[in-house]
């Protein structure tokens, strides 16, 4: 074997670099996201429920928002009748964010954790975060 030593040292350095992100984070657990649903608007609700069941919202809210925008902008609808028969005005700014007015402590909490940056807020106006 020619240059065996050099190759082995090279391989060790390579392995150390590649695994760096793993051991540098070892033992430091990232805090699990904890979206807060304690906004004034939600406190007022008799039943603290989202437009659809929580488990559905957790996994499907992005698809639902896509459907919402297409149905409003392209089909001219304005009313969403949820699976339990309640009616909601379809609007990201005026419906979702009316209840979830704590965007930083709610939407961003999960999105930062999973490194998604929805580009919606380039245009849609975020709620004013009131410190309460």
């Amino acid at each position, binding site marked *: 074997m020619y240059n065996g030593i050099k190759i082995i040292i090279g391989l060790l350095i390579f392995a150390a670099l590649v695994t760096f992100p793993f051991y540098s984070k070892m033992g430091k657990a990232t805090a699990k996201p904890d979206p807060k649903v304690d906004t004034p608007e939600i406190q007022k609700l008799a039943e603290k429920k989202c437009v659809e069941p929580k488990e559905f919202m957790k996994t499907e809210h992005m698809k639902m928002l896509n459907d919402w925008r297409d149905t409003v902008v392209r089909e001219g609808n304005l009313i969403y009748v949820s699976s339990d028969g309640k009616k909601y005005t379809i609007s990201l*700014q005026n419906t979702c964010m009316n209840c979830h007015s704590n965007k930083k402590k709610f939407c961003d909490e999960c999105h930062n954790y999973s490194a998604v940056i929805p580009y919606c807020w380039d245009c849609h106006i975020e709620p004013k975060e009131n410190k309460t």
Partner: protein
Amino acid sequence: MSINRRQFLKIAGISTIVGLGGTTAVDLLQRNWLEAAQYSPNPKALTAKRWAMVVDVSKLKTEDDYKKIMDACHREHNVPDLGNPKDEIKWIWKETYEHAFPGQEHEYLAEGIKHKPFLVLCNHCDNPSCVRVCPTKATFKRKDGIVMMDMHRCIGCRFCMAACPFGARSFNWKDPRPFIKEENKEFPARMRGVVEKCTFCYERLAKGLKPACVEASNGALVFGDLKDPESEARKILRLNYTIRRKSELGTQPSVYYIIGGNDHA
């Protein structure tokens, strides 16, 4: 190991079937989740077969009459004021007679018309050239005739701006957010790189309200259904001589102008 053509085709065929079947199965599962959920229009929405507008220029007299109308629209829709005609974003604005109606002007035009500003906006053409050129269907014609703009699909290619003979479309060269005086929290703003224009206030119609400009115009702008002979717009069209911008181009604009001074209504 090598495979011959026959084997390759078999494998390809089977993978296609598995692939298609797989996605359909996933789709079906997800549909079932929300079987009971539905979308519907607002029962109070204003509807028409063909929306149109009549601008009675003789009723617009002072600078303030124009400003009120333009401000109402621009405030409602978070239209920025960039303070520079090159980057300007406009949904409804003033134009001189010779620019609004080129080919109609002549040397001996009445003074009152020569120097009068004309309110212009998207014409919501029956035969819109912008819609024909849009590669993403971001701009499309609704059943009620409104030429809509879906900001979510706009890729900023500006073909529509080149196609529109009325200059009704504006491009966001810069992030407009810092230039909006007071944000209307109920309506979104726009971002750098999209084209925007008047949408005949489709979002207000859906709530049962007339367009913001019509509401602020004190009767100078009239909105109505062209296909309904009893609508206010049709009544005015019956009683007055009206013209449209560049009708010779064949786009069939649905914004009509009353130039003369005689009273109607």
